[in-house]
């Protein structure tokens, strides 16, 4: 059996979380489905229209960030917690499913749902960029698009795996969601501000101040390659919002020299951390349930 079959096609956990719960929605009377869908379809077509008319790629990128980064914890917070809260966990443990199938089934079902969101939102960004980025070549636009999508999506993947991990350990869905959102707010907003204040204090003592929004220093000297490992920059450089702004700044050549792998590297790091979390989670489940991985 291939991993694809084991984790996806022959995995009832994946199918239940991807499709099982949503079937209830689909099986509602048609008028209810239409009524529920109308506002979303209307908003979506209004956005498509705005994009075609005015470009506004940042509106759609912002919308993607908002949607994916809010939805990822919302979709994942109960995946394990509901098993404990509804007392279904024991029954799942006693089946022949492996720990890997249980964890990956839950995790991949959420990634699949995130991809559906991306399929709807990403084209808006691309259309908007072609309309708006007059000075950038088509190849440059595609590259900007790919790098931006990579950062947005890989952060959403990291959020999903982190929330899944919280859901397993905290065993309470609402608590897991609250911690995931609070953690995100801390990492995206509070920590960068605190770090800025901290560095400003050092600047008062005569040290060099690094402005997170001035991307020029990142293109100079050894920082062009060393930014990835500079602890002073880590809190900003690995902030996905600042990474996306950086991708835009370098793509539109507001800063001529792009630091090595900017955008791609952050995405890779998010995915690596995510993989580590999922691996640790699988190991924990295997150990707790005495199941094979």
């Amino acid at each position: 059996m291939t991993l694809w079959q084991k984790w996806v096609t022959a995995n009832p956990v994946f199918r239940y979380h991807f499709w099982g719960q949503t079937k209830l929605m689909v099986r509602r009377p048609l008028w209810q489905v239409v009524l529920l869908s109308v506002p979303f379809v209307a908003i979506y077509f209004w956005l498509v229209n705005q994009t075609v008319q005015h470009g506004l790629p940042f509106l759609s990128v912002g919308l993607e960030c908002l949607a994916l980064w809010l939805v990822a914890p919302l979709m994942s917070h109960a995946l394990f917690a509901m098993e404990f809260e509804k007392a279904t966990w024991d029954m799942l443990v006693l089946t022949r499913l492996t720990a890997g199938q249980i964890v990956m089934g839950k995790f991949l079902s959420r990634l699949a749902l995130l991809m559906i969101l991306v399929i709807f939102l990403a084209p808006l960004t691309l259309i908007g960029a072609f309309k708006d980025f007059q000075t950038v070549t088509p190849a440059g636009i595609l590259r900007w698009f790919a790098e931006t999508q990579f950062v947005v999506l890989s952060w959403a993947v990291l959020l999903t795996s982190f929330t899944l991990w919280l859901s397993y350990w905290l065993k309470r869905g609402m608590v897991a969601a609250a911690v995931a959102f609070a953690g995100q707010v801390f990492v995206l907003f509070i920590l960068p501000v605190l770090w800025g204040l901290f560095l400003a204090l050092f600047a008062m003592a005569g040290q060099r101040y690094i402005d997170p929004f001035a991307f020029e220093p990142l293109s100079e000297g050894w920082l062009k390659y060393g930014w990835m490992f500079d602890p002073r920059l880590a809190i900003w450089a690995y902030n996905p919002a600042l990474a996306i702004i950086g991708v835009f700044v370098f793509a539109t050549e507001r800063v001529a020299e792009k630091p090595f792998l900017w955008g791609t590297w952050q995405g890779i790091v998010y995915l690596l951390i995510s993989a580590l979390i999922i691996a640790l989670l699988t190991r924990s489940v295997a150990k707790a349930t005495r199941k094979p991985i």
Partner: protein
Amino acid sequence: MLEVKGLRKEFGQLVAVKDIHFALQPGDIFGYIGPNGAGKTTTLRMLATLLEPTSGTAIVNGIDIVRQPEDARPLIGFMPDFFGLYEGITVWEYLAFFAEAYNIPPRERKQVIENVLELTDLTVKRDTYVETLSRGMQQRLCLAKTLLHDPLLLLLDEPASGLDPRARAELKELLREIGAMGKIVIVSSHILPELSDFCNKIGIIEKGELLLWGDVDDILRQLQPARLLTIRCLDGADKLAEWLRKQPEIVNVQVVNSTVEAQFVGDDEAQAELLRRIILDGHRIATFSETTMNLEDVFLRVTKGEVA
């Protein structure tokens, strides 16, 4: 067969289950009796491989549940006392989910699901959403799920709790059928009338200690070596009691509310002969009956009402 060898579970200082031993054969229905907090659920969760014992083990059909939990699981079906169901799916989809999770081959799944639905009388509910089922129906669905992979050992933790009398009676009937299928069934309960009808073996646990276990009839014989006869005499109980005290096969006599209760040692023949002699002696007997101990009497006699 199932062989439980010195199973012990400690939670810090608390010893929840103390080195219990028992053995069961296919077809046995074992009533696991004890007050709340005695260690019944802990024992069942260890046997179900959900909880690792501190020491000891159990062997199911030659497979050690501690060393080879994943190999033992296909042989075990566990129905917890408190369970939930996946919502948003129908009865059929729920069972199909577990049939796949138990690795039942795709071409056999349909038949297996139909069989368990029929056994649990849920065929008419196959397209009903699980969350809309009554408590009794959900209990049956959980049992159907537990039987999907045809386990040899069935562990049912308080299966009748929260059920109305009709649902309880139906569950009893269902468990009797399952026992007749040659499975080893362990049913834990603190409601004794639930178990008395269909268990052929019992174990009584208190404070984590298995006080006794064995064949129901053997235990009753052990605990009640003499038969308890209850006799109502129209001429007055005291006169009859006086006469009975002189008989060699009577070991104890007392008068309770104008009825004589006497402990008698002997078989059915001797008992019939005693009745004949009482009548020949001129006593006018209105009722003459033998009172047998039930599980409740056994339980009350053996336990002290303590929890671990």
